[in-house]
């Protein structure tokens, strides 16, 4: 589904991502773990095209999208739920969902999808006409993920879905991510919270200081306590 070869992201003299290569297979949930500042968000932003990589190749479904604009990558089936949720606070819950489906031309399908998410997250239904900025953090995260799904992506990138949320809510969010995987969606999840990310992950990459340190099945990672503590902690 997604192949990244030798990705390099630089901000001026600072190199945020060095020579990172990874693969996400169809239907897989791949976790990208690492401490704060490891280059995880830079990787995601390079994948969506919001940041232009210094070098490297990004291939989605056999199509090289390295030079494709962000808008067209979304249309090609890749979507990201950004770190910090970035819901449109001044728009209502319903308007947020509608904008998520901006690339679709089937109003009926869009309406059905909105109803599906409202049934799935009753709290969004209760607050459908309210400004999204009034939602709690966990509700905003659910809205952000639902909004991403409105475009019916092939591949969903989730950047730190647990950020700033209470542990109980984090478990709920990851339960939902597990359901998405069970439905057949392909996911790349970036996390600091390794424990939750490992619940459903098929494979794990560990980055620190912009460099890939480890890749493999989650079981192997949990065993290697040295690696775990060194790069992730907890």
């Amino acid at each position, binding site marked *: 589904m997604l192949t990244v070869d030798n990705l390099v992201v630089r901000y001026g003299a600072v190199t945020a991502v060095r020579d990172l290569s990874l693969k996400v297979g169809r239907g897989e949930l791949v976790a990208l773990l690492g401490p704060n500042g490891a280059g995880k968000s830079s990787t995601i*932003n390079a994948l*969506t095209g919001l940041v232009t990589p210094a070098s490297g190749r990004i291939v989605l479904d056999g199509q090289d999208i390295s030079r494709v604009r962000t*808008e067209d990558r979304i249309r090609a089936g890749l979507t*990201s739920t*950004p770190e910090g949720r*970035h819901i*449109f606070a001044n728009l209502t819950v319903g308007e947020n969902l509608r*904008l998520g489906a901006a690339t679709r031309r089937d109003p009926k399908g869009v309406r059905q999808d909105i109803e599906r998410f409202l049934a799935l997250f009753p709290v969004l239904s209760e607050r459908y006409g309210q400004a999204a900025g009034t939602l709690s953090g966990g509700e905003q995260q659910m809205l952000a993920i639902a909004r991403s799904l409105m475009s019916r992506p092939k591949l969903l990138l989730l950047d730190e879905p647990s950020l700033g949320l209470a542990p109980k809510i984090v478990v709920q969010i990851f339960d939902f991510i597990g359901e998405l995987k069970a439905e057949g969606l392909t996911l790349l999840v970036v996390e600091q919270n390794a424990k939750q990310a490992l619940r459903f992950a098929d494979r794990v990459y560990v980055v620190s200081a912009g460099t890939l340190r480890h890749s493999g099945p989650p079981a192997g990672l949990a065993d290697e306590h040295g690696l775990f503590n060194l790069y992730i902690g907890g």
Partner: protein
Amino acid sequence: MDYALQQLLNALAFGAEYSLVALGLAVVFSIMGLVNFAHGEIIGVSAYSVFLAAALGLTSPIVAVLLAVAAAALAAIAFERVAFRPVRYAPTTTGLLTAFGVSIVVQNLFMLLISPKPQSVSILNGLNQMWFFGPFAVSSLQVMELVVSGLTILALVLFLNRSTLGLAIRAASRDFATVRLMGIRANRVIATAFAISGALAGIAAVFIIARRGSVSPDLGFSLVLKAFVACVIGGFGSLAGAAAGGMLLGFIEVGLLVALPQEYGGFKDALTYVIIVALLVYRPEGLLGQRVELGDKEI
């Protein structure tokens, strides 16, 4: 009674015109962070298009009105494409200086290609008549200004709340990167915002031509300064604020004209700004402005 009604209508008509132009500035500023001081030249292009069409034999006022709005919208889109797009990601001051540059270039084009002197345009004079409602005589132009501005603002509100592009413009005013993550083309959102801004300027141009019966190279510039003030009063970037600020400015100006004795009329502008400064001391963010919140990590 007649006098009071006349002054009220004056205030509403001035306010409506300021609101239209201020909204044009605010739509662009809210998503681009660009104070488009070339907005006055969009009004200018609109007015000169009508002047040229009339000189070439156009006689229909309706066609002239449509032409004014279309020319302004196209001019705004062209300014964006040619001048503002290359500096879109540059610092704000670069955009501001670019806007001044465009303003100077276009004003000079009017002077060189047409004339530095005002040129008479009579095609829209028919809009400016006296209407009699029982004992009251009112200016048809002022009534139309008020009604058309009201309808235009209503249409804008509907567009911004109902259409996907409208929602995208509202969303982009806070978080453009995430709008792009929805697959919505940035260029399209920005071009639409400029087109709206231009169309609003074109409507204002129609009223200016009808009132003055002439066009001159600098006809939009002072109005844009007023509109800028209206945006500051309302809170820069807030569309509702721009409309409210424009209306308030109209009322302050006409109110001062009425309140001041004839021989102190020259103090009108100075006192207007004193009132605005006092207002801003108490509400630095403007009437409806908000302090922009930045997340912990903006993309």
